Structure formats: C-alpha cells, structure tokens
C-alpha cells in the first residue's frame, strides 16, 4: 500500500502537492485558533483540550500522515512537524497530544506494512479520525522504553494483555493505544512487541490523578490497562526496530517542533511588548531590546536544528544501510536535538519574561508567560535530559568519524 502511495506522489503534479500542503496549513491554523481560545481554561482545569480536538477532527488533521491510498492526506513528517509547531504556539497540551498521536501513526505507517489489520487501522484513523495513545512505561520498570515486564498472552488467534502503566497521556480520551509488551510469557524483558489495542477491547482503571506544574491538559495519569484482541494486532516487526527507526527520532522531532511553537508564541508576546514600549517613547530603544534580539536568534537556532534533524531522518530513509555506527550517529544526533531544543525553548521564554517584566509575570495579560514557562519545564524532564546525555555519551564511544 505504501509503495502505491509513494508512486502516486512521485507522479503527482507539484502544484497539487503544494495545494495539498496549503490546505493542511490552513486547517492547522483554523484548529490552532480554537486551541488558543481554550488554552488557559485547559491549563487551569487540567482537562483534555476537547474543543481543540473537535476542531482537529473537523479539519481531518488526525489522519494527516495516513497515506493517500488509505484515505489520509499523505503528509510528510516535515509537514506534520510544521502543524505541531502551529498548535504549540496556541496550546502546548494540544500540540503535545497531537504530536504523540502522530508518533503512533508514524510507527504504524512505517512498520505495519503488509499487515491488513494495520492498514485497516490507518484507514480508520483517516475515516473516523481516531486518536491513538501510547503505553510504554510500566510500574515495575519505570520509563525504560526498551524493557517490558508485562507479556502478550496468546491463545489461538486471540491475545490478552495486562499492563500497570504509571502514565498514559490522554489515555482516557484515546480510541486506541499502542502498548509495548514482552513477546510471550517466557520472553526476555528486551524481547518486545508493539500491540495496537482498541477502545472496544480494553478497560482502563485510573490509578492516580494528573495535577502538575504544566502540560496539564495532556491528562497523563496512570492506568491499569487490560486488553484483548486478535494476534494480527501485534505489529509484524520487533519493537526495537520500531523504536530505533521511527518512535524515538520522530518523537524528538515533533516534540522539538511543538516546544519551538510554545517558545515562538512567548517571544512573539515579548516582541509586541517591546514594540509597544518603543512606540510610547519614540526615538529611544527600550532597555530590553538586546534580549528580544537574542530570543529571536534562539528561535532561529531551534528552527535550523529541527530542519537538520528532518533532513537526516529523511536521508536515513533513503539509505537504510545496516551500519551500526551510522545508526548510532543518527541516534546521538536525535538525542542532541531533544536536549538542546528542550533547553533552548526554556531559555527563550525566560528572555521573553525579562522583556515583558511584570506584565509577563501576571496571569491574564496579553503578555502572560506563566503557562509557557510551566509547560516548557516538562521538556527537559520527559525522558530526562540527564539520562539522554548519558545515553549519547555511550553512543559516542562507538563514533569512529
């Protein structure tokens, strides 16, 4: 199916492609306007951004990345990255949920190939605008992505799965969840598969509440997840392949994009404030001018870093060689993307706060930056930057360049 989509795209009129991209961008801006309107309420009440997701569904954006042949828009990762940035500018929680959904879609698009069940899932994501969540962490294991405790228990053509997940972002609001588990009851903790479970076949019991500093609308509380399904719902390749090839790099790229969006909105508020000050005192530059210039420079750095990561991720797709050192180099680079963008985004907002001063510190002004700052503090913590740096250092031991 994917090869059909690629051929179709290769023969498409370039004008059609850009028209399709323009319409996706217009859809993203329309949904972002709704998200922005409700961002403060979502944050205050720590609730799922339902208005924004109603708008995203209305704009058919949940199926953006689904191949055209399966009824989606066939959007590239670069386009999805742009949409995440636009949503991040409006509401960080909306941007994060959308980004996490697209990570799941990307995993199924890239690695579900040839499986009728997974093609069917993608068709439903496009047709019915299903929202997909992820359950990788586990109470007994913690956040280690590449280790599972729970196991798939298959009996004939059916399976059963029970996972105690310390967090499933928007779990209660999803239509399906991609769950990591050991391949079978006797499999090693690292011998994992990724299983797509659907709402009609699982039960979720909330284990705790999600009352956090920021990203309050992602509703990432813990759940006891018990699911059944057809063994065809298990992804056809090993989880390590999915994690290395798609889940990890795509996560870092789309997260980086939405963090850039949050920081862009903050800097844009600072710029407006600074221009207002300059207008009030014609002929003189407000003292915060240098900080505005520096913050804008940081955004440009982030944008360039993101473009580089996108280009290298695409290059990897073209030359899917078996070289371990090339794979390590790319993994180290994607780690660097995550640690630097999460850090830079926070720094840019802090500069913006210095520019806006008390107007930024107060809630409810056009220059308020508290939400941006609180939301972005999740960035260095979600997959802790300290852990990522240690992982990068490990990868660099194999660097022969």
């Amino acid at each position, binding site marked *: 199916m994917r090869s059909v989509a690629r051929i179709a795209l290769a023969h498409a009129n370039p004008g059609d492609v850009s028209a399709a991209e323009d319409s996706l961008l217009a859809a993203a801006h329309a949904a972002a306007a709704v998200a922005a309107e409700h961002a403060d309420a979502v944050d205050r009440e720590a609730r799922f951004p339902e208005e924004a997701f109603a708008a995203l569904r209305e704009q058919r954006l949940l199926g953006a990345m689904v191949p055209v042949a399966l009824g989606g828009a066939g959007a590239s990762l670069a386009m999805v990255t742009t949409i995440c940035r636009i949503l991040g500018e409006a509401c960080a929680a909306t941007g994060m949920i959308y980004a996490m959904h697209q990570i799941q879609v990307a995993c199924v698009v890239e690695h579900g190939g040839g499986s009728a069940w997974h093609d069917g899932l993608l068709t439903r994501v496009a047709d019915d605008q299903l929202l997909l969540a992820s359950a990788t962490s586990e109470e007994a294991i913690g956040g280690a992505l*590449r280790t599972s405790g729970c196991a798939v228990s298959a009996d004939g053509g059916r399976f059963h799965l029970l996972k105690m997940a310390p967090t499933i972002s928007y779990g209660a609001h999803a239509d399906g969840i991609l769950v990591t588990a050991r391949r079978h009851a006797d499999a*090693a*903790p*690292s*011998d994992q598969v990724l299983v797509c479970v659907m709402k009609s076949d699982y039960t979720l019991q909330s284990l705790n509440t999600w009352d956090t500093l920021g990203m309050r609308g992602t509703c990432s509380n813990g759940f006891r997840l018990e699911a059944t399904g057809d063994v065809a719902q298990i992804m056809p390749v090993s989880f*390590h392949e999915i994690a*290395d090839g798609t889940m990890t790099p795509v996560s870092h790229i789309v997260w980086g994009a939405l963090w850039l969006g949050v920081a862009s909105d903050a800097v844009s508020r600072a710029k407006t404030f600074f221009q207002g000050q300059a207008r009030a005192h014609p002929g003189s530059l407000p003292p915060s001018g240098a900080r505005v210039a520096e913050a804008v420079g940081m955004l440009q750095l982030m944008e360039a870093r993101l473009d580089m990561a996108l280009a290298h991720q695409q290059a990897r797709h073209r030359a899917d060689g*078996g*070289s*371990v*050192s090339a*794979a*390590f180099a790319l*993994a180290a680079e994607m780690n660097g993307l995550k640690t630097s963008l999460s850090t830079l985004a926070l720094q840019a907002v802090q500069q913006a706060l210095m520019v806006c001063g008390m107007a930024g510190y107060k809630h409810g002004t056009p220059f308020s930056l508290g939400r941006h700052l609180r939301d972005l503090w999740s960035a260095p913590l979600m997959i802790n930057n300290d852990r990522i740096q240690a*992982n990068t250092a*490990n*990868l660099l*031991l*194999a660097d*022969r360049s």
Partner: protein
Amino acid sequence: MKATIRKILGDVARLDVPPASLADSDDLYAAGLSSLATVHVMLALENAFEIEIPDRMLTRQLFRSIDSLAGAVSTIRQQQEAA
C-alpha cells in the same frame, strides 16, 4: 577465543541470561543484548584482542552470536597480520 568472548559478554553485555548457558550460535539479541551494550562489547573485544573493528564491519549481524563475533575477530586478526 570463545571463552574470552563469553567472559566479555558476562562482564559488559548485560544479557538476561548467563553467557555460559548460551550456545555459540544462539541469538544474542534474543538473549537481551541492547544496541547500547553492543558499544561496550565492541570496545572490550578491541581491547582484549588488540584489534580495531572497521566501520564497514560494524553491523547488527556482527553481534548476532558468539560465532559471528569470533568469526569477525579472526578475520580482522588475519587482515592485521597480513598488513
């Protein structure tokens, strides 16, 4: 040579099972070898056998089994002696 490789696997590979219980042809990834651990296996092999594993040989296949690791070490040693 395989005894040394087994010792290295025991020291740095963090497998789910003791290397002594593995057959030479058993799949090390199935035994829990992570891609990060392959870095340490590589460095330990280079140190123990005084070799340098060239970039082109660094594939996932190289770390597949004790047999494949031993084969690679022999090949590189022969090349280094010939050079």
